[in-house]
């Protein structure tokens, strides 16, 4: 009966909410908030519970709830809640579509997390996909189309994997996996992982993300922060729950890393690198964040591919962090867009003085993104690095490390271009974002801060997941975490940091008695005092770097896809000529078809 309450709360409640918020359009955003709040809060009593059931709607939905489900729900539902909270001031009042589709997406996502057979997984997966599709459609049809094509590609890759699984087992149940030969497993896992990797926007399947992430920001926060984690979940389930470590190791090992996982780890590292480099050169705030998202999920892929306890733990932790900080960043971008209507970094600037709280939240998220140790973002990155280094992978580790340096570059581009630097005259009267938006961001900031001080808490959950999947255990205590080659203690770090910060503060404030706060235009400008000039140096910020990279940037996966599509469309035009619109030709086809039928029949006789 308990599972029914879980199914009810996490799947049915959002579904009912979706219906209600469509019917009661006037209160849609608030209804959406309430119905997103229920699962997000109800989640806490469910910690550590394990249960399962079968729901029969004509097809049997096998559902279960365990700590993995719980862990992923924690990020998804919280991010969804924050997005809905943000949306209460972002979305136009009286518009039903947004809440309805968000809740549908949430229900789908929770369903994916609870599914324990492939049919259920696929049903909820697609439900989530198309509701996201329509949400993208609300802002742009073309972007939605790109999103949809890749969502469907992902679904069809999954179908291939599911189908081969079905061929061997005759069942859709995860638990029915036995007696599949290794070659079968290779295909199943390849298709499943690629299918899930599309959602995680792993190179070269990432090209949908920069487009889809340009739609409404609260939704994008959910898409990037929440829904992309379903890819992580899927890969984790496919590799470590359905197949299991033994089968992965059966493919042969390379320094005790499965040979099957290793290519994916390399792909992930490469994604991290590419995503970061491309993010550096973006001027569109949303696109920058999109590429950053691609890069960050590349790290997660590395961890999932490597498959040591430290790596998988790091991947899960990083996915968790990414859910929160990327949601804050997208929401922050949303707040800026909401207040100014602009999204080009070079057109903004100086908003930190007008929107200080937004700035602080975004700053904190950026600390997490860049992996500054005062947030939990560092710890997950640390785990991934150490996982690669302790196994001495000289290709993966440098790619990841240099990508994280690149992350500083685009982080600063956001900070400087949007929040610092010169405030445009036009934005003199910009107000701070409305309270619900700030509350949403503050809510998302909490876990990043808490788990930076007490990493042991979250590592305990992750450890439970890892033990459950027979991957191994992590070494950690409440404040510290260790790998085989190193470790760090956050308590010592925090105390020292606080003390030293206070010392600096003392040194700094000792003599500051009277200071005049000057206008930002009161600057050192080589003796000239122009009345007003646009001096925000954010346009084409990394131009020298861009010039250096230009020969390489010419190659774009995006364009490669476009060429590929164009090639096919030309082919389609040729095929279309078969339909000549002449009935006599058609009659002739009929005759030929008859002959072929006869010949085949004769041959088969």
């Amino acid at each position, binding site marked *: 009966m308990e599972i029914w309450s879980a199914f009810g709360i996490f799947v049915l409640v959002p579904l009912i909410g979706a219906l209600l918020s469509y019917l009661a359009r006037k209160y849609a955003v608030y209804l959406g908030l309430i119905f997103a709040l229920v699962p997000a809060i109800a989640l806490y009593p469910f910690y550590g519970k394990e249960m399962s059931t079968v729901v029969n709607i004509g097809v049997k939905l096998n559902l279960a709830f365990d700590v993995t489900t719980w862990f992923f729900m924690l990020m998804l539902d919280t991010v969804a809640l924050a997005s809905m909270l943000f949306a209460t001031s972002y979305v136009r009042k009286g518009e039903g579509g947004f809440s309805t589709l968000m809740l549908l997406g949430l229900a789908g996502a929770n369903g994916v997390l609870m599914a324990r057979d492939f049919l259920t997984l696929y049903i909820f997966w697609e439900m989530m996909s198309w509701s996201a599709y329509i949400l993208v459609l609300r802002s742009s049809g073309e972007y939605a189309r790109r999103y949809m094509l890749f969502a469907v590609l992902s679904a069809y890759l999954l179908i291939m994997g599911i189908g081969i699984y079905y061929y061997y087992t005759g069942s859709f149940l995860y638990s029915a996996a036995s007696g599949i030969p290794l070659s079968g497993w290779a295909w199943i896992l390849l298709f499943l992982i690629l299918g899930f990797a599309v959602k995680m926007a792993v190179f070269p399947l990432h090209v949908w993300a920069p487009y889809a992430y340009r739609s409404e920001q609260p939704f994008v926060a959910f898409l990037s922060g929440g829904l992309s984690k379903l890819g992580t979940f899927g890969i984790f389930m496919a590799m470590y729950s359905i197949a299991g470590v033994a089968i992965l190791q059966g493919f042969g090992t390379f320094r005790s890393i499965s040979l099957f996982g290793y290519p994916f780890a390399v792909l992930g590292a490469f994604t991290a690198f590419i995503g970061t480099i491309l993010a550096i050169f973006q001027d569109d705030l949303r696109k920058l964040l999109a590429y950053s998202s691609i890069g960050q999920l590349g790290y997660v892929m590395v961890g999932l591919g490597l498959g040591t306890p430290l790596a998988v733990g790091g991947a899960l932790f990083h996915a968790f962090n990414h859910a929160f900080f990327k949601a804050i960043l997208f929401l922050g971008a949303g707040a800026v867009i909401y207040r100014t209507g602009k999204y080009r970094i070079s057109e903004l600037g100086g908003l930190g003085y007008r929107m200080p709280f937004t700035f602080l939240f975004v700053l904190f998220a950026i600390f997490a993104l860049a992996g500054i140790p005062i947030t939990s973002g560092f710890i997950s990155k640390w785990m991934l690095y150490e996982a690669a280094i302790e196994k001495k992978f000289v290709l993966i580790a440098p790619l990841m490390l240099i990508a994280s340096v690149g992350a500083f570059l685009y982080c600063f581009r956001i900070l400087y271009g949007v929040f610092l630097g010169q405030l445009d005259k036009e934005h003199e009267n910009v107000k701070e974002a409305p309270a619900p938006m700030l509350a949403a961001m503050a809510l998302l900031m909490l876990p990043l801060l808490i788990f930076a001080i007490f990493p042991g808490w979250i590592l305990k959950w992750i450890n439970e997941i890892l033990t459950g999947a027979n991957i191994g255990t992590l070494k950690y205590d409440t404040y510290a975490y260790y790998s085989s080659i190193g470790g760090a203690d956050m308590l010592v770090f925090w105390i020292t940091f606080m003390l030293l910060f206070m010392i600096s503060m003392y040194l700094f404030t000792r003599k500051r008695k009277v200071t005049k706060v000057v206008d930002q235009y009161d600057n050192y400008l080589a003796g000239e005092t122009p009345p007003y000039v646009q001096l925000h140096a954010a346009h084409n910020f990394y131009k020298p770097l861009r010039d250096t990279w230009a020969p390489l940037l010419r190659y774009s996966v995006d364009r490669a896809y476009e060429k590929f599509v164009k090639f096919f469309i030309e082919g389609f035009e040729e095929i279309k000529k078969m339909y000549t*619109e*002449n009935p*006599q030709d058609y*009659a*002739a086809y009929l005759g030929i078809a008859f002959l072929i039928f006869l010949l085949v029949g004769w041959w088969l006789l």
Partner: protein
Amino acid sequence: MIPYYYIASIALIALGFYIVIAKKNLIKIIIGLDMMDTGVNLLLISIGYVKGGTAPIENGNYPIYVDPIPQALVLTAIVIGVSVMALALSIAIGLYKNTGTVEIDEIRRLRE
């Protein structure tokens, strides 16, 4: 061994089919369709044929009679064929009214 009466009907069908795909005149095409129909009817009627049989009227005098069912079938088929032809011709008339020609190629050219 294919019975020889099959050959005649197959020839008729093939001829009709040839007309349908080769002739450009709409009326001729419809005639071709009709020929195919006739060929099939011939096939049907001939499979019911029994050597030396008479009309299937059961009064005990003639023990050998042809199979009555194909005849019934052919009657139906003829009726259907006629109505299809009528519709086809009316469509041809419609096309002629719209384009002023019954040549397939010209109809196509007019549309473009």
